[in-house]
Structure formats: C-alpha cells, structure tokens
C-alpha cells in the first residue's frame, strides 16, 4: 500500500498534468482526484464510470412535536447554523459543521441528525487504470467529508496517485494525510517559488517525505534548484516548456500516450518515485 500525493501551493502549475501522465505509465496505480472543487483528471483519462455514490454530511433535524423552543441548541451552536426565531428554530444547512453539539445538548431529545448531500464520488476504469474522483457541489463550504471518505477507499488500494486540491488549507491537509510521499509541482518563476515555499512548509509540518517536479522548465530553473538544495529536497523531473504540451493538454490528450520521449520521461519519474518509497519504507531517509 502506498499513497503518493501530487500538490502545489497554487493551482495551474501542472499538478493534473503530472498526475495523469504518471498514473498512465505506472503499472497497477489508481488515479484519485481529490481536487474536489475542480476535478479535471477525468478530461484526460476518459474513464468509463461504473459507480457514483453520494456523499453526505449530517445536519440536525428538529422534531416539532418534541421541541419546547428552549433555544439551547441555537446557543450551543458556535457556527450560527441554528437561529432561534422564538416560534421555531431556523436551520441554516450551509453553516452547519456537523459537530452534533445541538443533538447532544437538546434537553428534549428533539434533534436527530439527517443526511444532506454535498457531492459525490465516482469510480471507474480508464484503459486499465482504476479511477476515483470526488466532486463537491458548487457553493458548498467544505469538501473535507468527501476527502475523508476517499481516504477510507485509499486504505485498501495498492498504489494511489492523489491529485490534491490547490492551496494550503485544511482540505489539502486532509488530502495528503498519511501519504508516503508528496510531490510538489512548481514552475521556475518567482511566483512558482513563492507558492512552492508555502507548500513545503505545510508538508514539512506534517512530516511527510517530499520531492519536486519543475514544470515549464527552462533557463531559470536555478531559482528552484537553489531553494531545493538548501532544504534538502530532491528534484525528480524537469518538464520542458513546450508548445506541444500546451496544445495536447488543451485537447485533453495525455502526452505520455502521444509522444514516446515524454512517455520515457514519465517512466523514469515513476521508477524514481518507486525507489524513493522503497527506501523510505526501509527506513533510509537519506535522499
């Protein structure tokens, strides 16, 4: 069992590009799209979806016959999701964090927790590659419940390549939790470096081994190398700045399938990654 998470401090650096091509060349790997607000892996892998299951969070449901309108539930809710109107308690589903404090504290046992759909998880196959995708409904405040559910699935998957959400927030923390390796995709610009630093800080804090891929590599790679050297982070791959990549990407085509040079680059990357994970498992963290 191994979990490899691909992330970047910011979106649009080639995270999905790297993950989809990597999964293409890795035997027995499963592609997992945890970029639940903008899951794009599907466009490149074209999976046949076999199953869609809804993801729910829990929200309180008040039984009017039992409720005495005492207002305790609305007092204990720290998220403003229950508003005491006197005659009734108004429930604002979108603000609820499913903490169940209201349910626990209601003196009349008038509250039950009911399911509310916030998104779905699709599973399928793309030419031999297992595919899992989480998708959050627009406007939902948090996709963490979807990510947690996917994490349960990951536990029984041989090799997971996880396309993580952008940024450094709690949904990223939940996505990369328990990873064996984090791969940070960056670009050799001051922007890339700035965002890379944020991501490194987070991964360090979570104590997960990491390595870097430079996308749109070119004459300015040194700024990334300098930083990585100083922080003891290995650079696994340089993806050149190539119009062909942009063009294939815009059409939703995998370059590892369309071009043998790139295929080889990703095969090399896959080998390096597997080696890193083995070393890590063997307790050799000197890399």
């Amino acid at each position, binding site marked *: 069992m191994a979990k490899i998470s691909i992330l970047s401090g*910011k979106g649009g650096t080639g995270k999905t590009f790297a993950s989809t091509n990597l999964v293409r060349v890795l035997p027995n790997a499963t592609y997992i799209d945890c970029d639940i607000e903008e899951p794009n892996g599907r466009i490149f892998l074209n999976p046949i979806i076999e199953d869609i299951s809804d993801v729910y969070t829990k929200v309180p449901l008040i039984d009017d016959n039992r409720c005495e309108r005492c207002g305790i539930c609305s007092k204990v809710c720290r998220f403003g999701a229950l508003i005491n109107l006197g005659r009734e308690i108004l429930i604002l589903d979108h603000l609820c964090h499913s903490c169940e404090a209201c349910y*626990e504290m209601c003196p009349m046992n008038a509250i039950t927790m009911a399911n509310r759909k916030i998104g779905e998880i699709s599973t399928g196959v793309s030419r031999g590659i297992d595919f899992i995708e989480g998708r959050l409904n627009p406007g939902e405040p948090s996709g963490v419940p979807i990510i947690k559910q996917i994490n349960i699935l990951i536990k029984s998957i041989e090799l997971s390549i996880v396309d993580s959400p952008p940024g450094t927030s*709690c949904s990223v923390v939940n996505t990369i939790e328990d990873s064996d390796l984090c791969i940070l995709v960056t670009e050799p610009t001051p*922007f890339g470096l700035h965002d890379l630093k944020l991501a490194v800080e987070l991964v360090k804090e979570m104590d997960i081994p990491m390595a870097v891929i430079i996308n749109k590599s070119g004459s300015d790679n040194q700024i990334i190398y300098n930083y990585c050297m100083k922080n003891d982070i290995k650079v696994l791959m340089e993806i050149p700045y190539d119009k062909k990549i942009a063009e294939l990407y815009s059409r939703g085509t995998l370059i590892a399938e369309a071009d043998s040079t790139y295929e080889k680059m990703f095969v090399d990357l896959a080998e390096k990654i597997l080696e890193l994970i083995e070393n890590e498992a063997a307790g050799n963290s000197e890399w």
Partner: protein
Amino acid sequence: MKQLAIVSGKGGTGKTTIATAISSILNNKVMADCDVEAADLNILLKGKKIKASNFKGKEIAAIEYSECNYCGICEDVCRFDAIKDIKVNPYKCEGCGLCTLKCPLDAIKMKWVETGEIVVLEIENGQLCEAQLSPGADGSGKLVTEVRKMAISIGEEPEWIIIDGPPGIGCPVIASITGVDAVLVVVEPTLSGFEDMQRVIDVIKDIGCKIFVCINKWDINFRVSQNIMSFCESRGIPVAGKIYYDEQVINALKETKGISEFNDSDAYKEIVRMWEYIEKHI
C-alpha cells in the same frame, strides 16, 4: 466606489497578470489579493508594507491539565477525532465547543488562535491589501472577508476596489464575489479551463452579479475558444477581452515586471481595451 472581482475557476490562467495591468491603468484604487492561500500580487506590484495585523479566525479547544482527571469523555464526544490521548490536535479541531460542554470538570476552554496575517502595502496610486492563511488552517473565507473589509477602510474614497480572487468554487470564492459590482472571469481555451469556467459561472449566477469573460491565450485552441464564445453568447455574458498568446507576458513574469512595463505589447493593449469596455458596461 465600484468593486470588481477577477476569478478564474482555476489558478494559472493569467489572472494575476491581468489584475496587475488593470492596477497600472487605475489612478485611485485599492487592490485586494483574496487568494489568501497563495497571495502573490505583490510580487509584481512591489508595494511597501505599511501595516500588518494578525487575524485570529478560529477558536480551538484547550485543556487545562491541572483540572483534568483524564476521564476521556472529551475524546469520546468529539465528532472530529480531534482529541487523542487527551491532547487536542489543532488541525483537526473544528472549534465546535462540544467537549467544553461535556467535560464534567470544566477543564476545557475555547481559545482564539491565529489563522493568518493581513498586510497593507503602499503601491503606485493606491494600496494593496493581502493576507496569508497560516498553513493548514481553515476559514479562508473569513480571511477573505477581512481583507475586503480592510480594502474598503484603508483607501481615501478609492474609485475602484479590484479583487484578485482565489481559485475554486467554494467558500473563499463566494466570499470574494459577494456584493461586488461585477466579476471578470479569466479563462484559457482548454477543455479543463472551459469546464472550470462553467462551474465558477454557475456560482456567480447564484449570487447574481454582472459577469464579464476574458479569454486569455485566445489562439492556443481556436475550437475551444469558439465554444467558449458560443457558451457566453447563449448565457448572455459579454466576452470583454480576447488576449492573444504573447511571449512578452512570459518575459515580463520572468523579470517579475507587470505587463504594463511592456506597454507596446499586444497583451497590454488588449487589456487596456478590455478595461475600457468593462468601465463602460459595468
């Protein structure tokens, strides 16, 4: 005062380049960098810090061990598995307070913790407000709201507040666009970009403000660009700008300069033209 938010569904579409160019056009404005997970407008705007304040955006549980008898009730009631071996994991604690209500010895208190920093910078002809969410923290939506409040309070009756929005379609995006006069959606003509754009437009439509679209790198895939155009037409959304792929943009970024410093570049001219259109139709 008018507020325009620039969003893109996904990062890396040229949003920052466009925001910086618009900043250079305007004489009296406050820029608000609302991508609080990776604020980088200032790399180009190069402002001078004039003010910084901590943002305490979240309460988490804190156990007073001198009063605790290690009964473990708090651990059992927490729905987020945030307490383990009678220790609170600050990343997992949602701040719901249930443990404080259930602790028989009243040994748990909620305390405010810092979740980010808000900074104000002096830039050419205005100010820039930005924030950085602490790594792994949540509540970026709240921080976005704080940045916008700061942006409104800091300027001397600015004519414009330009908001550089975060990626995605979640809570921070909604916080960035709620109450603005218009939203400019920047999209690159790729299949994934087109899909992201549609999702973000659905969210904006829900909130109900005026939308403009700008297609960046318009010529990298004409077919997708055409599809975006037809989509916008069918939804009654004006395409305010079509920026051609321009090497000058990459050169400018490499030198961490705004495209406005390359003011004879096609990209800059098109952004100026687009801005005139937006100003007129907003």
